[in-house]
């Protein structure tokens, strides 16, 4: 019996160790975002953590038994923008929650709204629109007249929400996707990118399986354009004296990326050490930073939604700042092993003034640490 217990213990520990941490799992892979349930009951526990806050609520099922639900809310930063401070909710408060339940039988749900029953005060409402007002004014500039991609002198801030949820080829009528990059209509796949047949089949497989195999789930970094789609935003740190620009990412384990602006040549493909962020070399063309990147490995998805790529991927990104509050991002994807021709997509990103990027680490794993 003791041997069996030891074996079971070993197996359980082994399974735990072999289970990837999943702080960044796409909501569509976890929740049935088409359904809404209403839950009412006392709050039993609050985890005010990044990248997502969780509240736990006791409800009663049809048989009158107490069932504890784990409710995933937005990040504390987003909640704060909605006026929801940490002290606004206390253990014992009765709340009414509208939420999308988890796929399967787990008592977990993604909050759409949370209302304090006693006062009727709405604490949280999920929204698609950017939560910050657009910053007005011209783009800040360096003394030499070049556009600054970061904060104006003496101020703080970072780039926040993107106007798109996933990368797709520029169209007069954009392809409709949900927050995770799932197509609203699978028949739109051909409008996303000019796929080679194998690439379209892989993309459709990922879409049909609701992105459950997203490498982000295993804490792989969001290389390529995806780094600019992460919910916690990003910022540029320009270092002209070092002839480089750092991109600090709010998501993806707070990774950073280097854009060299010293005119160095790209390494020959056969010699490149392949990485998640590739090797980036940038130059200014008037007010636009043009960055060419190669040397990507094949261990990540370069956008929400699961577009595939190979080691032949070459990206040309164009960053411009037409005003203080707007960054225009455009990327040309050139991967002849995956797509039949180069194609271009992009989005705009909104400036978030007077805020620092909050930390977001994959270890901060709600599914293993918060939810029973």
């Amino acid at each position, binding site marked *: 019996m003791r041997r069996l217990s030891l074996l079971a213990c070993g197996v359980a520990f082994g399974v735990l160790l072999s289970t990837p941490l999943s702080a960044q799992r796409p909501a569509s892979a976890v929740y049935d975002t088409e359904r809404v349930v209403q839950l009412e009951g006392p709050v039993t526990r609050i985890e005010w953590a990044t990248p997502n806050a969780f509240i736990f609520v006791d409800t009663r099922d049809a048989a009158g038994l107490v069932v504890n639900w784990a409710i995933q809310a937005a990040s504390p930063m987003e909640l704060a923008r909605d006026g929801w401070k940490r002290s606004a909710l206390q253990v014992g408060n009765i709340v009414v929650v509208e939420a999308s339940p988890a796929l399967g039988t787990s008592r977990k749900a993604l909050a759409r709204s949370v209302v304090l029953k006693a006062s009727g005060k709405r604490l949280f409402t999920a929204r698609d629109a950017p939560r910050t007002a657009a910053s007005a004014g011209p783009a800040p500039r360096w003394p030499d007249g070049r556009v600054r991609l970061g904060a104006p002198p003496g101020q703080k801030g970072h780039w926040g929400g993107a106007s798109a949820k996933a990368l797709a080829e520029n169209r007069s009528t954009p392809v409709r996707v949900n927050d995770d990059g799932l197509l609203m209509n699978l028949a739109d796949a051909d409008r996303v990118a000019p796929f080679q047949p194998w690439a379209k089949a892989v993309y459709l497989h990922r879409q049909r399986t609701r992105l459950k195999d997203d490498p982000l789930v295993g804490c792989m970094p969001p290389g390529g354009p995806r780094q600019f789609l992460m919910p916690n935003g990003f910022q540029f740190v320009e270092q002209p004296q070092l002839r480089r620009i750092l991109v600090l990412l709010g998501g993806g384990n707070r990774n950073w990326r280097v854009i060299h602006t010293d005119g160095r040549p790209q390494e020959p493909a056969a010699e490149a050490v392949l990485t998640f962020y590739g090797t980036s070399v940038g130059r200014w063309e008037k007010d636009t930073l043009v960055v060419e990147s190669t040397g990507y490995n*094949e261990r990540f998805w370069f956008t929400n939604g699961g577009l595939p790529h190979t080691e032949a991927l070459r990206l040309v990104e164009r960053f411009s700042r037409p005003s203080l509050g707007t960054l225009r991002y455009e990327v040309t994807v050139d991967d002849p092993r995956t797509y039949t021709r180069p194609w271009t997509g992009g989005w705009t990103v909104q400036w978030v003034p007077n805020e620092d990027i909050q930390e977001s680490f994959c270890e901060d794993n709600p599914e293993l640490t918060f939810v029973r």
Partner: protein
Amino acid sequence: MSKGLFVLVLLVVSLNASVAPAQEGHPLTGTWSGDWGPSATSRTHITMVMAWDGKTVSGTINPGPDAVPVPAILLDVANWTIRFEATGKNSSGAVSIAAEGKLDDIASAHRTISGTWRQGAAKGDFKLTRD
């Protein structure tokens, strides 16, 4: 084996499984290993390397001094089946190899291909797992 050692081995195996890097590009690209044979007890090891150049998947069976080049591996993405032919060598000279199989679990780092394998007059099944 002591109980402690047994558990330790189990943990090492589990840890090893957790760090296998996925490959998210063309699903055939990479190194595969497995075996083929006419029966469960008569098996021959295979290592196969496949690469996609944008137009063709080509490969090598058993890289090294006994390598067999595979000029084209056909992939039907409608049902994830593959097919290839090659010419190897044995003690009596050239021998033809032909295989047909199905790619399973395409999202897994350790996806598999299994199917039928003919080598000369011999016929059997094969299974390859991506390393």
